[in-house]
């Protein structure tokens, strides 16, 4: 079932800059969608437009069937937002600021629920601390607690692990996984490919205000996934035998290694024949290695393709 529907959304700022150029996207209930894109791709603008921080210039967005402009109360009460910047009042106490968030979204006081949220985020011991006394990682957790305080059905995390150390990043991933289990739909933006690869169900790639593709992570990786076979030779070769050059092999590391790229999605990868031909050419194999293309390679490929087209 679709939770968020984005139809042909454009956003032009007053200076004429078009941050979104007709973006369309459907987000399913209960999934984790990672929006991947370089800096300035339009990730934050897209999120801000869904959450009501900016108004779309044209197009239509619904959350849980509620239009974000005409039925903003219905839409916004379903949405929690964790912003990219650590925007918190330094002098406030943790519990107070979380309580404020819940009230702001029109929910009656429920300190038992807030206690559960704070415990889940390891913030309960800090509930009476002032925000300014907390570490950067703790502040980020407070932002998440604030976003969760009104029991949203959809949670937007805008670069939740930007500038966060490895340990905290893993923590954050665990938290996200826990939320997904609780049935929350999660949209996170990131420019860490590793992050999208680790936790997302589906991946959307956005660049220059356009959504280039949205696909299941595994399908995407197989579809675009290229594999590389590296053949290490006993003795280096100077030139490639013609029969091997014809199959698209190339020489690397001063003739010590032959590299062959192939598509895993194809029925016949041609590896068996290739290996035979290598021995037929009188070359002695020392080692074989295959390497799967990472999401990063796919991503860089997509973005540069768009740049070439422009």
């Amino acid at each position, binding site marked *: 079932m679709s939770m968020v529907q984005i139809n042909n959304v454009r956003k032009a700022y007053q200076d004429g800059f078009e941050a979104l150029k007709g973006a369309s996207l459907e987000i399913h209930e209960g999934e984790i969608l990672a929006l991947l894109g370089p800096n300035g791709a339009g990730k934050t603008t897209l999120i801000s437009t869904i959450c009501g*921080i900016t108004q779309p210039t044209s197009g239509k967005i619904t959350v849980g069937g509620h239009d974000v402009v005409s039925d903003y109360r219905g839409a916004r009460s379903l949405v929690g937002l964790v912003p990219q910047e650590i925007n918190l009042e330094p002098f406030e106490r943790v519990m107070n600021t979380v309580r404020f*968030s819940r009230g702001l979204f*029109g929910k009656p006081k429920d300190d038992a629920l807030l206690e559960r949220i704070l415990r889940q985020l390891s913030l309960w011991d800090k509930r009476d601390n002032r925000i300014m006394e907390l570490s950067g990682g703790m502040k980020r957790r407070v932002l998440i607690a604030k976003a969760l305080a009104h029991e949203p059905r959809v949670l937007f995390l805008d670069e939740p692990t930007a500038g966060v150390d490895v340990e905290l990043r893993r923590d954050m991933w665990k938290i996200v996984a826990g939320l997904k289990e609780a049935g929350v739909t999660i949209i996170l933006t990131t420019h860490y490919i590793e992050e999208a690869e680790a936790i997302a169900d589906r991946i959307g790639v956005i660049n220059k205000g356009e959504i280039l593709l949205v696909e299941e992570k595994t399908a995407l990786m197989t579809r675009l996934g290229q594999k590389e076979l590296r053949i290490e030779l006993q003795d280096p070769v100077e030139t490639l035998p013609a029969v091997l050059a014809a199959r698209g092999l190339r020489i690397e590391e001063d003739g010590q290694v032959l590299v062959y790229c192939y598509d895993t999605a194809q029925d016949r990868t041609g590896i068996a024949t290739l290996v035979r031909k290598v021995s037929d050419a009188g070359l002695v194999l020392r080692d074989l290695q295959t390497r799967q293309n990472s999401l990063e390679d796919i991503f860089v490929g997509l973005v540069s393709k768009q740049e070439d087209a422009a």
Partner: protein
Amino acid sequence: MNWQAIRAIYVFEMSRFFRTLLQSFVSPVISTSLYFVVFGAAIGSRIDQVEGVSYGAFIVPGLIMLSVMTQAISNASFGIYFPKFIGTIYELLSAPINFLEIVLGYVGAAATKALFIGIVILGTSALFVDLSIQHPLAMLSFLVLTCVSFALFGFIIGIWAGNFEQLQLIPLLVVTPLVFLGGSFYSISMLPPVWQTISFFNPVVYLVSGFRWSFFGLADVPIGLSLLAIGGFTLLCLAIIWLIFKTGWRIRA
């Protein structure tokens, strides 16, 4: 109406006030006392009476107005400017609330603080001079209306301001002179005719005059005109705020 949200904003804002209770409470008491020492005791001993009221008592309504106006403006402008400055405004913009609810929360809290300070000053004044209030109900209404309308005005300043300097600019350059020249410490009739005419273009004159009437039954301008002025000012501020939220000016990119 999202009453929970209004309550949340109001409580949150008031907690800031109570956190700095010493500053909120003690500073108006001290400054009022200083005004009484300077104007009441030192200068007042030479003025004696203004239109049959002792000078010390005569300045009380103006003194309250002076503090209430500046406090309402500074509380409301800071209240909405601060979230803008530190970025927490994202939460207000993404919450299921409309402009009226935001205004009720912020302006309600700012007006409450100003009212509280007004009452504290009134109490402090009673320690220095004999006070009589001829029309208590009118006095209270005037006080509340002034708190609300100037908190609305402060809210507009807070949204307009792009930095802390601008936040201080209007109160300092416009409001303080208008209040000082608005008959807080004198009766307009004490001025030369030219300045009397000029004074009637100062909106604060109508407020101070109306407020003073509720104490002593004497006024520089008819009480109806005073009511009209404060009512008109409130409506004007409300209209501007409505327009700001409708267009998203300085709030929504």
